[in-house]
């Protein structure tokens, strides 16, 4: 019989893969959605089991050799605390957004292709999970392309509501493919130098090189990987694809993307910079310390400024996401315990908060038909629960105490001070101030405006949307108060990433 426990790592990817393919058989009506919810729910359960197994075993990581080939030759799945955590986040958010998606998808996608839509949707989640769990550099590329291809198609499905979804999607496709090609190139250069594709093996081979710091091939590999990854995680100024893609994608897709896609990009950066090149090379031999910090700081400030100017709430949140990526990147490029921990915590917190907020906007689009500021005006009276969720999420973006956003910013600032980078602390504060301004813009429209047009007749969002929204917003509050789980996992993951270095 199938030994679930022994095959847990591969089942996490296999369940949604098979589920996604079978979803094409489900026909019309509510069945595709139901099936997707079951599949993503099962995946989520498996990731929980994975986390518990890992915590219970006391091992630093669990390795699974696909095809029973020794990991140096075959492909290895490798779960440590960091990616068990990210897996949990991706699968969890994937599950909640799937549950949420039913009405929103019914509203926005032609009903003769729901089965295909959900198949592609689950395959996108599969790709993201696969990137997170694998220990093989080339496998990362293949799964990256699965998740990207599906996401391009999903974004383009916003075409029936607004044709600009198509151009946004194509632009993402071009930039995303260039980014992926850079990553492929970087992996090629690394393979040429090390002769292997296993990440751990690559790392030990690199360390064995006498001229690691001066080898020009490694240097260029590093540069191209960083550029490619920055494109994928939308680090300023390579974020050009993100705002429009998030704005014009179907509501459910925006929520899934905002909560998971860029986060997995950041996770890849962790794996490549810390796992393959090692902290010593990435942050001490290379100037990436300053380059990444500089980009992140610029990103925090400029994208928040742009966010203030937006008149569409979705694109406002999209620009805010670029800024939040800035915080995450700033955290890990400090390369000290608090900074990296802050970065990991923020991946989780931002995923939960942004996911919830985009879902709330989706509910508004479902009831009102749009997410422009003019649609939001006065909704606080008509849809108090949805508006309340949006406002609470906004507080989390600012980093208000007792929200999850506060915890990550706390870690970040202490990390910056540990590293003697008081400037970064200032940037974080300025960023929070700007966040206050743009969140206030939303709150003002919601609670202090007079409803007009369709807004005036809007009723509260249906329960099937409200529950997932409030689950995520509730989580963002809960993990702002009780930080024991996230902070504990993040600090332990950070110390293992840094590998004992200060």
């Amino acid at each position, binding site marked *: 019989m199938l030994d679930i426990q022994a095959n847990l790592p591969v089942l996490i990817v296999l369940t949604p893969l098979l589920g996604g393919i079978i979803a094409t058989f489900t026909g019309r009506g509510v069945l595709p959605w139901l099936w997707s919810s079951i599949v993503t729910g099962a995946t989520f359960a498996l990731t929980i089991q994975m986390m518990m197994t890992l915590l219970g075993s006391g091992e630093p990581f669990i390795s699974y050799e696909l095809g029973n080939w020794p990991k140096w030759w075959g492909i290895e799945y490798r779960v440590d605390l960091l990616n068990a955590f990210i897996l949990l986040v991706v699968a969890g958010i994937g599950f909640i957004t799937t549950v949420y998606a039913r009405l929103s998808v019914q509203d926005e996608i032609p009903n003769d292709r729901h089965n295909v839509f959900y198949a592609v949707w689950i395959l996108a989640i599969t790709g993201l999970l696969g990137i997170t769990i694998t220990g093989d550099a080339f496998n990362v590329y293949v799964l990256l392309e699965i998740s990207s291809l599906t996401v391009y198609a999903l974004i383009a499905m916003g075409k029936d509501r607004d044709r600009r979804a*198509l151009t946004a999607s194509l632009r993402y496709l*071009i930039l995303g493919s260039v980014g992926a*090609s850079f990553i492929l190139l970087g992996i090629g250069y690394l393979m040429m130098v090390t002769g292997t594709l296993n990440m751990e093996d690559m790392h030990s081979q690199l360390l064995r090189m006498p001229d690691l710091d001066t080898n020009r091939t490694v240097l260029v590999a590093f540069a191209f990987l960083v550029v490619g990854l920055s494109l994928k995680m939308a680090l300023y100024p390579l974020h050009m694809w993100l705002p429009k893609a998030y704005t014009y994608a179907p509501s459910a897709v925006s929520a899934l993307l905002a909560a998971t896609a860029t986060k997995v990009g950041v996770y890849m950066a962790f794996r490549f910079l810390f796992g393959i090149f090692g902290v010593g090379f990435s942050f001490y031999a290379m100037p990436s310390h300053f380059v990444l910090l500089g980009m992140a700081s610029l990103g925090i400030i400029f994208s928040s400024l742009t966010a203030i100017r937006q008149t569409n709430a979705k694109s406002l949140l999209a620009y805010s996401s670029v800024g939040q990526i800035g915080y995450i990147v700033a955290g890990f490029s400090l390369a000290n315990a608090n900074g990296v921990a802050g970065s990991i915590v923020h991946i989780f917190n931002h995923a939960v908060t942004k996911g919830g907020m985009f879902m709330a906007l989706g509910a508004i689009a479902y009831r009102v038909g749009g997410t422009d500021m003019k649609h939001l005006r006065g909704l606080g009276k008509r849809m108090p629960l949805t508006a309340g969720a949006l406002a609470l999420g906004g507080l989390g973006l600012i980093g208000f105490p007792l929200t999850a956003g506060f915890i990550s910013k706390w870690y970040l600032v202490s990390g910056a001070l540990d590293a003697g980078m008081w400037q970064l602390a200032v940037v974080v504060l300025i960023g929070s101030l700007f966040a206050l301004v743009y969140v206030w813009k939303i709150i003002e429209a919601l609670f202090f405006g007079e409803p007009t047009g369709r807004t005036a007749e809007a009723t509260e969002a249906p329960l099937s949307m409200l529950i997932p929204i409030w689950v995520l917003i509730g989580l963002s509050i809960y993990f702002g108060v009780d930080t024991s789980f996230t902070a504990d996992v993040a600090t332990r993951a950070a110390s293992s990433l840094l590998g004992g270095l200060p």
Partner: protein
Amino acid sequence: MTELLGIYNYWIYIILMMIGFYGVIAKKNLVKQAIALGLFQTGIFLFYISMAVVDDGTAPIWTTVGDGAMKALGPYDNPLPHVLILTAIVVSVSVLAVALAIIINIQWAYGTVEYDEITELEREEGDADA
């Protein structure tokens, strides 16, 4: 001189890649961009295959002799990059297919596939929104 000859093959791949890259950035026709993206990726494939070559090597296929046992004939080229590129070619054609599907949709929605004309149309639309 021999050193330069030895790495010149890699330069060709860089040239090919950059021709594609230039096309991706500079061309305003979306179909052209998609094709240029293909060129760009082929350049990378050329790099991978180049690194698999061994002096006097042959294709990495063993020869079977009479009773079905396999014999090595001599130095073989490295099969690992070949395998990776097989996968990458498949990925690139999938990307091309999806890109073209989106481009056809753009043609239906905007009536053109020229980037400039689309931006013009979108700007008008944006003004109408505001």
